[in-house]
């Protein structure tokens, strides 16, 4: 049985900022329709990994990032977006003073000549609370709604891969559950997801596979159920809690 080529392939990636080495040989792949988690303690380099893939600001030193068959070594952030590789960064980074509707429409910036009405109504259907707030500036939304808006904005670009950096930060547990349910649904409908989280147990329950990053290296990798049973994961990240 031959498995399809991965949508995202990261091979032996070394990356950092200035003289600081953060990633020291990371291998990772994500296939279409998969929900993959990246776990690990603060400072492990999880955000740096996503920023490297988005070609945002980390400097690539060696190794390769291949997205949908395209080597991203020389790509700009704009190009990664055009290829369908979208990131919802830490802190959401919405356009606070622009309306919900404008935030979403701008999400389709790279395909702005297309008609956006179909996508827009699909996003409002998926995130019902946003539909009532179309005209409101983004800063008036609750934390959960802001995270929905950030995801909705990225969906407007029709991503093949959606990367979420700590989407659960600052949100109530029920809202987090809701977000993960939406993420699973997106994965089932064919969009690949790469989710960075510190909340290991919750994330593993929704993920297909996971990588544990420590000190810029992959310390553990496997299917979510394998990792959930792994004594080392339990000891390090769950601290015995099952919440």
């Amino acid at each position, binding site marked *: 049985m031959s498995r399809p080529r991965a949508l995202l392939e990261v091979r032996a990636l070394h990356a950092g900022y200035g003289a600081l080495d953060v990633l020291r040989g990371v291998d990772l792949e994500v296939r279409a329709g998969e929900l993959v988690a990246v776990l690990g303690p603060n400072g492990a380099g999880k955000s740096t990994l996503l920023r490297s893939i988005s070609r945002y600001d980390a400097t690539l030193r060696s190794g390769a990032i291949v997205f949908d068959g395209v080597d991203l070594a020389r790509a700009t*952030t704009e190009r990664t977006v055009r290829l369908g590789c*979208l990131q919802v*960064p830490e802190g959401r980074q919405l356009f*606070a003073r*622009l309306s919900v509707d404008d935030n979403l429409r*701008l999400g389709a*910036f790279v395909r702005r000549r297309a008609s956006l009405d179909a996508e827009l109504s699909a996003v409002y259907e998926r995130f019902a609370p946003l539909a009532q707030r179309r005209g409101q500036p983004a800063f008036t939304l609750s934390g959960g709604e802001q995270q929905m808006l950030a995801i909705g*904005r*990225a969906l*407007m670009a029709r991503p093949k891969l959606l990367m979420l950096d700590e989407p659960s930060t600052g949100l109530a547990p029920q809202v987090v559950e809701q977000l993960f349910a939406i993420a699973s649904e997106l994965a089932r409908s064919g969009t690949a997801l790469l989710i960075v989280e510190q909340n290991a147990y919750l994330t593993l329950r929704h993920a297909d596979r996971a990588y544990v990053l420590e000190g810029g290296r992959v310390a553990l990798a496997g299917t979510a159920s394998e990792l959930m049973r792994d004594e080392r994961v339990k000891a390090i990240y769950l601290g015995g809690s099952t919440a």
Partner: protein
Amino acid sequence: MLQLLVAGLTVGSEYGLIALGIHIILRATRVVNFAQGEFTIVGGLVALTCVDVLHLNMWFALAGATLAGFALGLAFEIVVLRPAGRTGEAGVTIATIGAVFVLLYGHALVPGWGSNPQPLPGFGGPATGSVELAGATVQVQSLWVFALLIAALAVLYLFFERTYFGKAIRAAAENPLGARLIGIDVNSTRAVSVALGIALAAYGGTIIGPITLVGGAAGFALTIKGFVAAIVGGLESPIGCVAGGLVVGVLQVFLQSRLPYDIADPIVYSVLLVMLLVRPQGLFGRRDAVRD
């Protein structure tokens, strides 16, 4: 009284446009462009060339100066500000101060421009015409200044509030990280913002030209008046910037009518310090608008 008010609103329109240009560039680059007044002077001089050398009327001269301002602004961002940005915001600020001197001494070397102020013809007639309005004598060119100020504000409003690209520029100015991650090329939107700000300076320098003459060494004083206007109205608010300009213009003209020139102007400048101490958000701004 009415005559003084109209005169104040006329110079105030220019201050308002300078303040608005400073605001647009500040939003996009996080830096105050100290050369805004010099670009206003250069814009007026480009209009002069359009009239004297190309024999165009003032309407085409206005279009020419505004387009030249836009092109100059693009070049200014790409050639000067962007490279200076690699050393941080302080580097960009210093680059704009450097541009003050290059433009101040440079424009005097251009044939036909020189260092002395020169007259421009008026819009729709001679520069000197006047009409009686409610018992006061009002310069026709003042009325054109008001109309052209409102036209510029309307165009900018429609661009930033109603067009997709205008909203993308606002988005990139507000959150460059969020903008880049949806594929907006923040370098381009920043260049266009600076170009718009400089185009506005050139436009302002041209519409006031028939009244105040164009050229000369007053560019930096204009920048400071524009900055006072922006602080008075609230640096964060585009409408506040324009309103602040009108307030500063009227204040200046009333003070000058009562006091010697060398006392009136320092009072206008000291408004800057008073406002920063008492109401940093500006007369029209909200307190929570003061950030960063």
